[in-house]
């Protein structure tokens, strides 16, 4: 099978083993990123998503490549889940010419239009009204496409969130707003900054259909996103989905998450999304108990060879400094 983003995307649809493999790919990929940053081989900042893999792969499995996704700077997992190749993602993160922005974007700016990934934005909440507009375009042109906005719990307090949700509801647009509630907005626990702990409550005030989903259970993610997609395609308007999830790492490179209460991380790791899906597959006898280690090892080896290749790859040339600013 070819390694194109579209093929990678197709492979996870309705295939739980492939979904598990993609989740492991994301986990291992983030591990490699973490180490590369720690070794000083990547500059700038990065926002890892380990712990949240079921959300990313579940969403990607539920959409078509003709649908659009607007997501945030915590985007490595979504980009990989949607089909972007590890080589392209890592090239961008390492500032290499093989990246989606030829290395001019970095970790926070990934995109791949071939699988519907719009440029990830580094501004909290900014993608929410943009997705609303993408949905307007789909509704007006009757393309049947759905616009998905993925954002964190921190975004639920910014004006763009409220303005984007309101307009989408008023115009009955084919949009899905997915909040990855990982309990912390940057360094601050949710309760210290936010008036409600269930962010789906906010959708209620816009009279918008809303779900609270266990984001560690990929089957539940797929079921609810699938329902929202059907509503959107049938002209039944937007849906808000709150995914209860957890990030194992801190907010960004410089954050070691010392603010977490003792035992919280460990409790969430008990409900690790990869472990949960693997257990389900083993109990169904789709996989054996030994398969997980084998898949993890194979994925790790593959990603390490990608890493070696990317490390040796070329840097963007000076002319890229002035490219892609204006359209003709």
């Amino acid at each position, binding site marked *: 099978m070819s390694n194109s983003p579209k093929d990678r995307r197709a492979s996870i649809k309705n295939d739980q083993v492939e979904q598990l493999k993609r989740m492991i790919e994301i986990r291992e990929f983030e591990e490699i990123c973490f180490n590369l940053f720690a070794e000083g081989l990547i500059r700038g900042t990065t926002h890892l998503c380990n712990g949240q893999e079921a959300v990313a792969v579940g969403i990607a499995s539920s959409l078509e490549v003709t649908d659009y996704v607007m997501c945030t700077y915590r985007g490595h997992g979504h980009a990989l889940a949607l089909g972007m190749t590890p080589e392209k993602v890592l090239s961008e993160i390492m500032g290499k010419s093989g990246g989606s922005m030829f290395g001019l974007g970095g970790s926070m700016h990934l995109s791949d239009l071939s699988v519907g990934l719009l*440029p990830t934005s580094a501004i909290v909440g900014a993608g929410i009204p943009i997705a609303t*507009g*993408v949905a307007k375009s789909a509704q*007006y042109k009757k393309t049947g496409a759905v616009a998905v906005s993925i954002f964190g719990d921190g975004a639920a307090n910014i*004006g*763009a969130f409220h303005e984007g949700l309101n307009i989408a509801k008023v115009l009955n647009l084919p949009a899905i707003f997915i909040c990855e509630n990982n309990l912390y907005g940057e360094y601050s626990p949710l309760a210290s900054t936010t008036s409600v702990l269930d962010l789906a409550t906010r959708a209620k005030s816009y009279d918008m259909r809303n779900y609270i989903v266990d984001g560690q259970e990929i089957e539940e993610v797929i079921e609810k996103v699938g329902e929202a997609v059907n509503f959107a395609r049938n002209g039944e308007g937007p849906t808000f989905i709150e995914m209860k999830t957890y990030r194992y790492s801190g907010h960004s490179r410089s954050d070691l998450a010392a603010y977490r209460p003792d035992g919280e991380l460990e409790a969430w790791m008990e409900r690790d999304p990869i472990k949960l899906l693997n257990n389900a597959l083993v109990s169904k006898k789709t996989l054996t108990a030994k398969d997980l280690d084998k898949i993890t090892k194979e994925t790790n080896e593959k990603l390490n060879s990608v890493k070696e290749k990317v490390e040796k790859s070329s840097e963007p040339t000076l002319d890229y400094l002035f490219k892609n600013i204006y*359209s*003709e």
Partner: protein
Amino acid sequence: MNENSDVILMGEDIAAAGGPWKTSEGLLDKFGSERVMDTPIAEMGFMGMALGAACTGLRPVVEIMFVEFLGVAIDQLSTEAAKFRYLSGGELSVPLVVRATTGAGLGFGAQHSQTLESWFYQTPGLKLAVVSNPQSAYGLLRSAINDNNPVVVLEPRSLFANREELIRGEEGFVPLGKAKIINEGDDVTIVGLGSTVESIKKASQEIDASSELIDLLTLIPWDKEAIVESVRKTGRLVTVEENPFSGGWGSEIIAYVTSKCYKELKAPPFRITAPDTLIPFNEALEKKYLPSVEYIKESINKYIITNEAPPSWWEELEV
């Protein structure tokens, strides 16, 4: 909108009410509510919506009632729309037009009277044009709608009552990035933008020198070639700006032209602007605030005679 069904219009009260400035009267009936949309009073939200629509196949025209309201939408315009092509590695285009009304003179007070062109400097990816008469209102807007980039078109409200015979269609287009020489002259280059274009035309009739009058039309990117060529001929340059002195658009132009033509200058280029203060409501003070035809004429006449930059009227008033 007749020519391209991808062109949609959105803004506050622009559909059912026909627009607060009546610039969209009749369009709702003609094109329907999917194309002519009343938005909530939520500029950040509908600017974001316009961007999302623009990068997936539509050509939205957003109307902002007063340019100040762009303050709450500037993230979507400057940090998102202007950068989306770059952030997509050249995959996406953003054919987005933002119209906003600007300027003092009508008694709207401190928060509804500014011009604010300089908010958009240092935003590569964005274009900005300023209307100076009915033809440029038509022609710049048509060019902006045809452009595949985000373009801000500022429209001075004080000109809304002006009327002239309009050239329509392709011939009436005013290209972005090109200044227009209104009147050729040999002694001094006078550059206006927006509302000051009318003022420099009137003032020049009583200037005791041969003035070359230029309507800048587009500020981002501005027509360097036209201004430099003119100053090489005249050796003198004056910019006439409605905005406060500090950081106005003329600073950029004068800095550039001075660096390029230093040895050809006969006098230091200088700027006629409003003072560094807020815009007053009181009618007499608001009139004084704006660079009047009289003030422009006197300043330029002094400049021509002395070959020095004359002092501003407020210099002795400033604390």
